[in-house]
């Protein structure tokens, strides 16, 4: 190889690198545009959180969490896994609506929903890796031992498989970005199969996360412990997904306008109304299911206790109220109100999952509510991981055709 050829190759690589990774800028320009208020805040959060993550892996969980013999789980799982997974049902719900049920109008949102789902699961696993005592053994349920009677065994297998499925579902966007026509064609051909696989895996592991708590009837508060837990978790994951699509698309349209095309921006308002309608309907169903779960175990009397009032606040303030806000917005056609309802609905999911996994569990131990308050280090780690999540999301949206269509590829 002579010098000339090498030089051409180097130039090609530089052009490719600038085009694909630096979005057409050179290094100095790229670095300059990185200095924004958001990025400075993100850098501060990471400069605190990343060293704490290192401390966790060098000195053990005790160095950064309040994990104890009575309280094995904290917000890594309560927020990251139990909260993160339902909010990441976006890919499953929108892909099913679009590819299977034929809601073709929602095309501009499908890729965004699939990406939100894929990254949501990826980061749920990252929270889990922070929490596992020996994270390097994460593959053990696949190879070393099969605890087939364990609901967590099902969750492990499904989350791992579904992460792969979602990667394949999102891969056409990556391949379009990389201009790999032939592999993209193959990736598109498995879309329907992957979508149906996604339905199977999602319905099962979303409900399984609720079923996990069925094993602890002696430790759970009766208002949250119900044989309905699996169906409650599944039902709420559907409206979590619809709310999250609204949340994510709103943020993308507001802050990453330059990554979006006109199709996305002009369709967003009517599509948001449709999503809001679906979310509110599912929330009403969920609200009634919650009431039936109280009736089923005849726990009405418990509603008059402090825990009962917290339970009422959860289902009225964080389910019924967001549903009513959504309905109001849909009825009057005011997208802003629908967005408000969607943000409240998504927040309500986090409240519910924290309630089930942290507030209701061990409620009868002395000084319980004091014990579930996480130390600042644990919060800082969660904030750091959430920040990386947002940064990765933005990195992909800015580069790959997600909220815009690559002109030469529209057949998906």
């Amino acid at each position: 190889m002579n010098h000339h050829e090498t030089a051409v190759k180097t130039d090609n690589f530089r052009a490719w690198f600038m085009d694909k990774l630096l979005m057409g800028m050179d290094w100095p320009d790229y670095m300059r545009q990185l200095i924004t208020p958001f990025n400075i805040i993100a850098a501060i959060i990471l400069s605190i959180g990343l060293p704490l993550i290192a401390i966790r892996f060098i000195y053990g969980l005790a160095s950064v969490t309040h994990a104890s013999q009575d309280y094995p789980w904290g917000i890594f799982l309560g927020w990251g896994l139990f909260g993160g997974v339902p909010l990441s049902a976006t890919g499953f719900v929108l892909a099913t609506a679009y590819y299977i049920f034929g809601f073709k109008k929602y095309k501009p949102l499908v890729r965004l929903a699939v990406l939100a789902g894929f990254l949501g699961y990826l980061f749920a696993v990252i929270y889990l890796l922070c929490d596992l005592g020996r994270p390097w053994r994460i593959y053990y349920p696949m190879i070393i031992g099969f605890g087939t009677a364990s609901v967590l065994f099902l969750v492990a297998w499904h989350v791992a498989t579904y992460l792969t499925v979602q990667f394949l579902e999102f891969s056409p966007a990556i391949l379009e970005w990389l201009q790999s026509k032939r592999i993209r064609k193959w990736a598109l051909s498995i879309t329907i199969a992957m979508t149906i696989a996604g339905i199977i895996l999602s319905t099962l592991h979303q409900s399984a996360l609720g079923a996990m708590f069925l094993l602890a009837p002696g430790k759970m508060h009766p208002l949250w412990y119900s044989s309905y837990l699996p169906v409650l978790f599944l039902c709420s994951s559907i409206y979590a997904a619809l709310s999250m699509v609204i949340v994510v698309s709103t943020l993308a349209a507001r802050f990453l306008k330059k990554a979006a095309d006109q199709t996305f921006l002009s369709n967003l308002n009517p599509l948001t109304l449709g999503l809001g309608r679906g979310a509110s309907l599912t929330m009403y169903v969920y609200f009634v299911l919650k009431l039936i779960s109280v009736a089923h175990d005849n726990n009405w009397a418990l509603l008059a206790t402090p825990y009962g009032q917290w339970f009422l606040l959860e289902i009225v303030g964080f389910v019924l109220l967001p549903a009513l806000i959504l309905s109001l917005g849909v009825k009057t056609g005011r997208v802003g109100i629908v967005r408000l309802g969607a943000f409240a609905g998504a927040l309500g999911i986090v409240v519910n999952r924290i309630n089930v996994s942290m507030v209701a569990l061990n409620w009868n131990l002395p000084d319980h509510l004091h014990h579930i308050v996480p130390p600042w280090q644990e919060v800082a780690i969660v904030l750091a991981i959430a920040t990386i999540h947002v940064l990765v999301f933005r990195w992909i949206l800015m580069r790959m055709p997600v909220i815009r269509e690559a002109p030469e590829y529209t057949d998906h």
Partner: protein
Amino acid sequence: MTQERQEKGAGGLQHGGRRSDSTDQPHGPCGINRRGFLGVMGAVSGSALLASAAEVHAYKQFEGWPDRYGMLSDLTACVGCRSCERACNEANGLPKPKKSFDDGSVFAELRRTDDKTYTVVNRYENPGDPGTPVYRKVQCMHCNEPACATACPIHAYSKTPEGAVMYDPDKCFGCRYCMVACPFGIPTYDYESAFQPRIYKCVLCYDRLKVGQIPACAQGCPTEAITFGKRSDLLRLARERILEHPDRYIDHIYGEHEAGGTSWLYLSSVPFGQLDFPTNLPDRPLVEETKGFLSSVPVVFTVWPALFGMIYASVRHRDALQEELKQEQEKEEERQ
């Protein structure tokens, strides 16, 4: 699960000859698994294949290993000397506690087991007799069908035919679901360790059982408050005691039915709820609470592809019909 646990247990038998007849579950002709096949090939468990038709059950119910051992803790005999704590500490080679085992000041607060303490004795007021407190020993209850084993996604727990619930740190990845699932709060974790954290708990001195010794705490008890024996014998003994001294005991053997029954049984003069025993547990094993959900898995795997595949096909079909209609209309218009 039950079948699997039995196979695992049978493989781990130490006194195989003595107990294998009673522990081998009858296999039907279709029940020939790999282990059974090896049996035909000249290994030891061939007798399992010769089971008569009458022994083949369509409905399988695991009522626990028939000859499993247990412990009977008679709280009315316990004087709170903590000899059991000392014996446990020594037998398991655990680090010495800050306060010595003779130090009664530990009773000032309720203690719990942890990664350096497999058993503790707590003191409670005795409402019936304020002068004499009640002491309660806490340790793994060794459930007949343990929730920790049900929870574990890697099968790191097993219930041995001897009755001990064992834990294998080589399999554990540290999810700590067992700690959430255990109704008695027994599995404990060493959060201090970054590279080799693991669960610690009482294992009924399994190594001592294997060489014919009894668990260290029972051995160390000077007041015979802890009796070691076959669980079935201990239940009989406990019932006799209640019958003979109805004034001394409340009429309940804790552990006979709780969470499906435990190898460790308690007799008490004070209602168990007042001694922090969980009294809100179902009588059936906790695995039953999740069985219904898990049985939906094969249904979802078979019905969903059919259902959603059909919906997809029907939407496509409708689209194709509309397309045909449109083309026909266009042709019609062209003709006119």
